[in-house]
């Protein structure tokens, strides 16, 4: 499914920067006069909306008089309006080196840094301003927004709550305040904030934003209430209908969501995203064939949307239709030959289907397209290992561990491969595997399989207490792992703790049964094997 794109930051940035155009002249030389001419011309061009020409004029002014904070500040502003945020930030920083006390420029710098997700730096600059000018409302607003992004919800509420007029001006800041309330469990306050959107001048756009926040915070009733309020007034019935169906889907009211979508579609509002969501509804209602059909319709309506292909693959995978999933993956990788994600997905399906040689090819391609992608590195090494390309796999794992030293998955998968080699005669491999597993323990996220494998090794060496501790640790991390409970059952039985052994084995049997049911492909879909 697609993520909602939140455009609030752009709106706030532009609103904050627009009043900047102030003349800041005062130099007396000919050069200065020349610079001022260019600067004035630039400002006029900017006000006329010709930002590229304005940038050229301001750059000339800055070239002529490089240490004029005003020219620099104006150039930074134009660059920001052109969305050249990195450049703009550098120019603002130069301006502030000339005039560190310029509150306005610092506020714009903070706005840029916020845009660039450099929240701690934004916060630091805003705190400097508020030390100088504690009542600077725009800065309080910005600090509220930054704090919300930094998950510092008390500060967000304090700052945004202190400038209600500024917050009310923009649906985005209302949304940020509401989100902060939700996070702190102040549901009623959040709902009150969002209700302001019902009468906000931004109209349907603001209300939809509010609904998205309520939806995101799992307050589905409020989300639905907001959407229902605009159903009659909005001209964009497709969006409103889709948002309503999305909320219903998130609320796990799949049949309702499906009805909403079918009604929307039958009214002529056929969109790729509506069919995509419909596909997921069918999937949740265990109607795999309808799900695949709907997802195919989504693809047909918008063949450029890669996520539809990937979603089709996921749905087919979940229903055990591996060959069909691979077919979809092949179509996706043919359609998007430069997409690492398409080849990653294809590789993972091939790996599941034990088509190891093909998986090596797919992952190699994914890695070439995105050399920094850890999933591609991991998949490739795994595929090589399964394809019998042991030397290549070892080299891949070793390189990946150097490249991604904090990712425990590489150590785990490498250890698993080495343990296999140890089982088939390579005695030194086991020592290396154990070292890798122990080093993976210290990394995050904690992987239950690491503890399971350490437990298994300890058990093989009759270090029963250690084995039991590791298996318990694994069970704590993944209580639904059948094999962990199986291992616990075995070890308890060996320790003569028969009641615990029986309990663990019973748990294991139940988990295995549910795994078998989940893995059983629907009749006629077929399951691939090698």
């Amino acid at each position, binding site marked *: 499914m697609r993520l909602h794109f939140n455009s609030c930051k752009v709106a706030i940035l532009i609103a904050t920067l627009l009043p900047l155009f102030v003349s800041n002249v005062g130099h007396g030389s000919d050069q200065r006069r020349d610079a001022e001419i260019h600067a004035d011309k630039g400002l006029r061009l900017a006000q006329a909306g010709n930002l590229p020409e304005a940038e050229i004029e301001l750059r000339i002014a800055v070239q002529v008089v490089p240490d004029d904070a005003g020219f620099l500040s104006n150039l930074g502003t134009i660059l920001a309006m052109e969305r050249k945020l990195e450049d703009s930030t550098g120019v603002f920083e130069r301006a502030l080196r000339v005039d560190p006390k310029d509150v306005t420029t610092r506020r714009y710098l903070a706005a840029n840094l916020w845009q660039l997700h450099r929240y701690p730096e934004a916060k630091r600059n805003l705190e400097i301003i508020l030390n100088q000018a504690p009542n600077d409302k725009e800065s309080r607003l910005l600090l509220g927004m930054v704090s919300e992004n930094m998950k510092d919800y008390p500060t967000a509420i304090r700052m945004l709550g202190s400038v209600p007029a500024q917050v009310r001006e923009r649906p985005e800041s209302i949304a940020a305040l509401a989100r902060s309330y939700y996070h702190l469990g102040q549901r009623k306050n959040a709902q009150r904030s969002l209700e302001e959107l019902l009468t906000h001048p931004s109209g349907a756009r603001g209300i939809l934003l509010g609904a998205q926040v309520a939806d995101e915070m799992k307050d589905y009733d409020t989300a639905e209430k907001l959407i229902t309020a605009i159903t009659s007034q909005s001209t964009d019935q497709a969006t409103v209908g889709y948002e309503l169906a999305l909320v219903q889907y998130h609320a796990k009211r799949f049949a309702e969501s499906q009805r909403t979508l079918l009604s929307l579609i039958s009214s002529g509002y056929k969109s790729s995203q509506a069919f995509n969501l419909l596909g997921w509804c069918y999937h949740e209602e265990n109607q795999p064939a309808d799900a695949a059909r709907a997802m195919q319709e989504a693809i047909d309506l918008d063949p450029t949307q890669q996520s539809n292909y990937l979603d089709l693959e996921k749905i087919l995978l979940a229903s055990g239709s591996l060959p069909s999933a691979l077919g979809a993956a092949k179509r996706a990788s043919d359609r998007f030959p430069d997409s690492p994600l398409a080849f990653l997905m294809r590789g993972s399906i091939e790996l599941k289907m034990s088509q190891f040689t093909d998986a090596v090819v797919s992952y190699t391609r994914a890695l070439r397209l995105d050399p920094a992608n850890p999933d591609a590195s991991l998949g490739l090494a795994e595929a090589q290992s399964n394809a019998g390309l042991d030397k290549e796999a070892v080299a891949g794992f070793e390189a990946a561990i150097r490249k991604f030293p904090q990712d425990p998955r590489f150590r785990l998968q490498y250890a698993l491969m080495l343990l*296999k080699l140890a089982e088939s005669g390579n005695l030194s491999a086991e020592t290396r595997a154990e070292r890798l597993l122990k080093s993976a323990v210290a990394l995050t996220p904690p992987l239950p399989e690491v503890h399971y494998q350490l437990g298994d090794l300890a058990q093989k060496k009759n270090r029963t207490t250690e084995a039991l501790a590791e298996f318990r640790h694994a069970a704590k991390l993944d209580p639904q792992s*059948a094999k962990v409970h199986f291992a616990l059952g075995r070890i308890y039985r060996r320790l003569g703790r028969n009641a615990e052994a029986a309990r663990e084995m019973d748990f294991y049997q139940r988990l295995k049964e549910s795994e078998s049911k989940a893995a059983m492909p629907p009749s006629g879909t077929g399951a691939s094997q*090698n």
Partner: protein
Amino acid sequence: MTLRFSNRPFHVCLVAFTFFTHGGTGKTASQAEIFTDVTEQAGITWHHFSGESPDRFLIETMGGGVGFLDFDGDGLQDIFFVNGGETPRGKSPTPVRNALYRNLGNGKFEDVAAKAGVDRIGFYGMGVAVADYDNDGFPDLFITGFPESALFHNNGNGTFTNVTDRAGVKNAGKWAASAAWFDYDRDGLLDLVVTNYVQFSFDNPKKCAVNDVPTYCEQEAYLGMPLSLYHNNGNGTFTDVSRQAGFDKLVGRALGVVAIDVNDDRLPDLFIARDASPNLLLINKGNGRFEDIALDAEVAYDAGGLAKAGMGVDAGDLNGDGFPDFVVTNFNDQYHSLFFGSPALRYDDRTVASHLAEYSKSFVGWGAHFIDYDNDGNLDLVIANGHINQVVETTRSDVKYKEPPLLLRNNGKGIFQNMREQAGPAFNTGYSARGLAIGDFDNDGGIDIVLTCLNGKPILLRNNVGQSNSWIGFQLQGTKSNRDAVGAKITVSFSDRKLVRWITGGSSYLSSHDKRVIVGLGEGPQPAAVNAEIRWPSGTVQRISNLRSNQYNRISEPIKHSPAVHNK
């Protein structure tokens, strides 16, 4: 030649006889190789037909069986091959026939299946279980298959009669794989256990493909079946007692079976190898019921709780501790499993420690049997391998479609050495092998091997080295016990060694073996005294001293207990 008994008088006949002396079959192969492929010179030309078709029915990958038997009582082991059959779109240009190769005694065989009346069956054939179920002195044939099975009674005149319907062992509607004759209630009559594989129909082909090339769907796409147990009523009929035995609840994809007394209570138990279902270790409770203890015995799953793809199984004492150990063949990457037994019935998984993991990593295993091929007194292991997926080589570089069999030499402690280099060309050649039976077709004391191959000719491997060490052969004949003495336990003592062997029911995959037992006596001069204790299935214990080596000893069960015979 008559042997002397240590305890007289016996109401038994104990006759030692030598069929052939060394070299009697005209060996021509290099002595450097342990086994020589003599299929061609033996005149074995039969081909297996699987009915391979575009529908890719799973059954096309699974057959066929083979059995050693002396059907005409001439003292020579003959060979019976079970053919597969046609599938809806996999037709044979010639009728699909089984083969019964009569051993002519000169290293050559002659197919007499048509004359014997066992060449044609009306179903898709899988395996064979040989035994003299009516104790008339002639081995009978139970042929497994889909959607039924058949029992052929040996008339004693070179012909067989299909008695399936009268006997009540049709096993209708089921895909039967292996079968084992064993006397679970110790009434002196061999009963029959049948491993049923999966719910299957030619009407519903399942579709799977690798890169759009149709291939066989994995076994988990099919639901398993319960086992069948038929009680021998002693009048030529059998009663299906599967439900009474508790087998109706043991649903899974069963393929291999071996009957052996694992807890030494004189009641034969069963080890069932199952494919992607947990293995079963069924303890005979003595009241007609069996209890599965595989989970507690730690033979049901691998260490991760995963049911492996169990195909074939055999039992024997590999490490000389007197307890039966088990080998189970599995899929590639799973390794074939080796479990060491113990009095506590908790098995020790020795797959890795024995090097079996190392040697079997790339192989899909089927038939398997312990075999002391060099008669050094240690049970070695032979395994038939072959992948089921014809396009597997396009998916990885370390697994082949056609795979060589494995001959693994045991050092006496259960550590194997791969004998590939010395074993002979057959062990360096890829086959789609399935069934595997052992038997001494040339009666030279070196145990020979026969393998079946999917859609191919079988391979008869003559043992060249067994005769280089001393051995002692047992041909037991039950009187109170079943005539084949299935379930007998033989303990042979010589020098400072004590070796235990069992006459098991079933074992391997789809196959049946020479029921005579050969015990290797090791290198060096013949032991001064070889003694044996035979515990017959009836419970009678018979002790015999000073057995002669390098020959078969035909031993009948004492009709009355002598003072030297002790019962537990």
